[in-house]
């Protein structure tokens, strides 16, 4: 099946089996391994992408539904010079990545939140990442990072 969609701001087209998930397509057809496999049953969030502006588990999304839509992955949130984007930098500064496996999903959860709510409080950040499991960190430093990125973004735009 031939599918065309927008990936990290660029048009892409792929030929994939109808039942292939977006997760498998990203990793195996497009070679973008930043989006991770954690459970493939929609429970852990390691496969999270931003799909049409919403944080979405790509292991649950079959390719026909992706046609014509907009997808952002961890590979698409860096700064214009190729370096870390602001949420990525905040994760570095706060030690928010330990093993790093939930990190791409968490960063996208942060990005998705800040796009719709630029000034979230900690409770809102907690809720925004509640679909992403982390076994290493206890979540505090992840929340610190997203909170810090939000604050700096607001300062920049004022």
């Amino acid at each position, binding site marked *: 099946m031939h599918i065309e969609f927008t990936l990290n701001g660029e048009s892409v087209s792929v030929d994939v089996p109808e039942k292939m998930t977006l997760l498998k397509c990203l*990793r195996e057809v497009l*070679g*973008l*391994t*930043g*989006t*991770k*496999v*954690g*459970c*493939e*049953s929609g*429970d*852990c969030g*390691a496969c999270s992408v931003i799909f049409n502006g919403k944080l979405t588990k790509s292991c649950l999304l079959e390719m026909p539904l992706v046609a014509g839509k907009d997808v952002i*992955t*961890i*590979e698409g949130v*860096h700064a214009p010079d190729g370096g*870390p984007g602001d949420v*990525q*930098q905040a*994760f*570095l*500064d*706060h*030690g928010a*990545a*330990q*093993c*790093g*496996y*939930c*990190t*791409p999903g968490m*960063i996208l959860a942060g990005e998705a939140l800040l796009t719709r709510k630029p000034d979230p409080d900690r409770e809102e950040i*907690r*809720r925004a*990442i*509640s*679909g*992403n*499991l*982390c*076994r*290493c*960190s*206890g*979540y*505090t*430093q*992840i*929340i610190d990072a997203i909170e810090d990125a939000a604050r700096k973004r607001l300062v920049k735009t004022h």
Partner: protein
Amino acid sequence: MSKLNYVGKPTALQVDAYDKVMGTAKYVGDMYLPGMLYGKVLRSPIPHGKIVRLDTSRAFQVPGVKAVITSADFVNNGLWGWPIKDAYILAHGKVRYVGDPIAAVAAETEAAAIKGVEAIEFELEPLPVVSDPHKAQSSESPLIPDECPTDKNNLCNIHIVRNGDPAAIIEKSEHIFTGSYVFQHQEHAYIETEGALAIPDADGSVTVYANDQSPFINRGNIASVLGLEQDYVRVIQPPVGGSFGGKDDIGYQTSSQAAKLALLTGKPVRITLAREESMAASYKREWMEVGLKIGADNEGKLKAVQANLLADSGAYSSMTPLSSWRATMHAGGSYRYEAASVDTESVYTNNGYCGAFRGFGNNQATGAIECLIDEMAEKFNMDPIDYRMINLLREGDRAFTGNKLMHRPNADRCLEWVRLQSGWDRKRAEYASQETGAPNRRGIGVACYFHGSGLGGEGTDFATANIRINGDHTVTLQCALTDYGQGSRTVFTLIAAEVLGVNPDRIQMLRPDTQTATDSGPTVASRASIVGGNAVRDTTEKVAHLLNLAAADLFKCDPAQLIRVEESYIGPQEQPISFEEVVDHAREMGFQLSAHGYWQIPEIHWDFDSGTGVPYFTYSYGAQIAEVEVNRKTGVVKVIKIWAAHDAGKIIYPLGAKGQMLGGIAQGLGYALTEGFTYKDGYPQKLDFNTYHIPTSLEMPEMEYKFIDNILPEGPFGAKNLAEPMMISAPPAIANAVYQATGVRVHEFPINPNLLKM
């Protein structure tokens, strides 16, 4: 101590976090090579059975399938295991648990590999199932291993402590307390599952990228079961998505399966486990039942303790002989007694096999003693912290195992901090006077712990490290101890930076690679910072010394006259010379700017037969207070806040230590309230994250923590061990808080909400 530039700096960042946040870190499942085959494993659907027929021929008829292996493809049928050799790379003769691997297929696509597995014909004759650890030793229970390591049916191992005559003392005690506590299995639930990528070479050697914790043990095992010289096997560790002790045995099995398939097909083979597969097949934390009997006098002073522990090792022994030993060494808690005895038995069952998991037996030991101590405090009408304080180990005391403590025990300082920070006294009084029938009731509870450092009596505890200063003035550092997120690579880099007097950015830590690193034992027991850290310090001091000689030669002065300011060397004339110049001069002088370092924990000796000796050369200490609110209608426990204090000596990498503390509390929370990996007649009951619930961001309480100021003189810059102990006291602290909130003493973890309903 002189001011430190890098060690302990609050802003020190994780050295390998960049790739993780950019999404470019390549975990095993992200690694792809042209021509790579995909491996899938056939696993037993039943908990106990004889393999009466196994025919793999139809698998070869599936298009794309290139190889199928069984136990016959390995030396000695792939028998392996340590310390007890009772397991197989692929099952031989029998399957012993649901998920036991039987055969493995390599195919051109994952889909073909799955079809290949489904095409394998096999017949299992069901055998009686042993699922209740209490019944394992009964003569009616079938023997689960091929050979029993002891003379009792399904008894895997025993451990004892014999310190004086506790029975006699307890009999004469004015007060006797007993308690029995059960701890259900726990699943590691790392977000990345197990996997290995094996790449064969034309000369018959094989390189394996595997997400296990101990590349040297993996290499030794692969070489042994494949009948290869160790030099023909190379194991490299890529970034690992969490382990917590869980990726050893199953990692070695998976690595050997992939390696064999790779050598057979001449192509790279990658095996990664699916989540449901991993939850069934991978080993768990042991189920344990801990029985305690304590005698105390009228003032509440502890006189003697007798403990009996039963551990479920499941289908294979794995690390249970060692974790059950650590449980034995901690069963009395960090208290002073006149006498003590412990009797521990580990048994085989047809539940999933059990092995290493963060805490390694001390979770269950401390969970039990801290619950009973709390009951005793109440009986003596004493505040739970005050009661602990009068019985806590103090400087110069002997632990219940009989060994004299070599360093000041700091549980008291930890208890003092959490008491003050939490407003303990005020809250204890406030919650004691809540309305009995209130729909939501609060409680605040405490627990403290000690945790033996290093492997202890488990084995020789050493590590090695290598360093090289390159011609381009960069520094290459390598240690075989691994980093699976806990930050060991960063700790080593900071230590080397401090000793060498260079910016950590100048140092590159190589991946653990059996071809270039030197053996350092397994990355377990939270030993990386202390043992690995000291080995890194040792090797770095050697090259630092050579650079000092070179700088002294440039300044024409004595090395003792040198001062370091940032990276520069300053001589008596105060004219600075750069690090680069010194390196160049050292090379001109003909110095070899590379070194090997070694460090070993001071030798201690535990006599397993007599139950006496010195189990550990030192301990770390901690305490936690938990404040909870219980809904009396649903019985659901909400943890509002946790205060945690821990003595880990000098903190080398503060952001990492913070993450380990908070993450440890999260795992303790899950162990206490929401997890519980259960078996029914040997069948695992929870195989996904929906039914096996680990804490999400919404369930985490507010947490305040403190690393107590302390220095272990023998540790690198004064550091001790850190990664494991901090998950240990959350469960009993929560249980004790739940008691204040509900009047219900719980004796099983995770806590059953039904018991807390009004």
